[in-house]
């Protein structure tokens, strides 16, 4: 990997300006994946001096600084109290402690990585992102939109509520990327179903969600139908970790387990 220049900007405005001067200029969050994802960087822009890394609690929401490491997420007692602890669970399932001390929540989100475990959990509770220029955006909007002007993520806001959550990752070994990961949530009988690493960036199973969310009494057959809809609507592919058919089967099984867990209030 080649890096020509390294800049420690004095302000976010300076960072944004330099970032948008060239497609080969990049901001650095944790930097855990730069070796695997970038080959040539004209100017590497340091963010660690400008962006918060703390998890802060407010009466109605939790704010996570974009530079918060995955290890701090997995260890947060506060995050374990909410959403069935799915943010901590997803962070725990990621590789080893050394990587988790480098990788940040901000880098994970902005990278839109197709292998991400954390994105699946964050999308299931559709967190709000706070950008320097764009302001507030839902994660679901950010993941499905291409932005011509690059921006800098400052923090992640999560509304406190009684959402129940389920998260599961399937991988060949503890250190490997997921073959598939699934998150299911129940916010006052509104269900969200997210599948990631299909391989592909985490996505909602919208038809399945629409189906189950219009039901008043959910039966075993309804759950089966929801899982079928989800497995049919999401795109799956084959790679050396697993085939398209295997991933589709796994998605069906773990969505079913997830729905049963959050319907029965077992997170």
């Amino acid at each position, binding site marked *: 990997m080649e890096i020509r220049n390294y800049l420690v900007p004095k302000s976010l405005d300076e960072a944004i300006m330099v970032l948008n001067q060239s497609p080969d200029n990049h901001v650095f969050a944790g930097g855990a994946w730069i070796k695997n994802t970038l080959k040539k960087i004209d100017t590497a822009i340091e963010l660690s001096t400008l962006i918060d890394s703390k998890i802060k609690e407010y009466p109605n929401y939790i704010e996570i600084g974009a530079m918060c490491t995955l290890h701090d997420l997995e260890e947060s007692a506060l995050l374990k109290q909410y959403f069935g602890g799915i943010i901590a669970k997803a962070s725990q399932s990621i590789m*080893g402690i050394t990587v988790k001390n480098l990788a940040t929540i901000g880098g994970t989100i902005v990278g839109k990585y197709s292998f991400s475990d954390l994105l699946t959990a964050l999308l299931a509770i559709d967190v709000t992102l706070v950008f320097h220029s764009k302001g507030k955006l839902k994660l679901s909007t950010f993941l499905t939109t291409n932005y011509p002007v690059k921006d800098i993520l400052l923090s992640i806001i999560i509304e406190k509520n009684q959402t129940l959550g389920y998260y599961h990752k399937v991988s060949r070994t503890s250190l490997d990327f997921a073959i598939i990961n699934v998150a299911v949530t129940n916010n006052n009988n509104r269900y969200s179903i997210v599948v990631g690493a299909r391989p592909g960036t985490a996505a909602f199973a919208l038809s399945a969600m629409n189906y189950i969310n219009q039901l008043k009494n959910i039966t075993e057959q309804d759950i089966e139908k929801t899982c079928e809809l989800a497995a049919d609507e999401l795109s799956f592919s084959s790679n050396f970790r697993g085939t398209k058919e295997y991933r589709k089967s796994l998605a069906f099984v773990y969505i079913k387990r997830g729905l049963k867990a959050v319907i029965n209030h077992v997170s």
Partner: protein
Amino acid sequence: MLVNLFLNGEAKTLQVEPGDFLLDTLQKNNVVSVRRGCESTSCGVCTVLLEGKPVPSCSLLTVRLEGKSITTVEGIQKEAEKLAHYFGLEGADQCGFCNPSMALTVYAMKKELKDPTIETIKSYLVGNLCRCTGYQAQHIAILHYLEDQS
């Protein structure tokens, strides 16, 4: 570029290129206890402590370390010797290639966790691979090391 950092408590000024990773910088400066393994953050043999926290030096740019504190196994020599004693008692090492990184991660774990169980130890060390031992003897040795408050 010049980077000023603390290596095992000693102030150092290092000449680096913006794209140099800490593993390469350390090896160029004759710190050979930090090993080169997968170079993709997976194996853990390049572990160093950054401000006391274990990180993979293969993926950490040296230019980002201005004013930071880096610890290699030379910086925790007495603790590493104590851990080596327990490894010896349990027959927990063979080639020794992973030992410096293992010692650093265990040292960080000792500072971070209170009374870890075998399961907690396994979870904390999941990113430090050992190709020889099969881990069981290491985990027992580490548990005994953590119990030794002397």
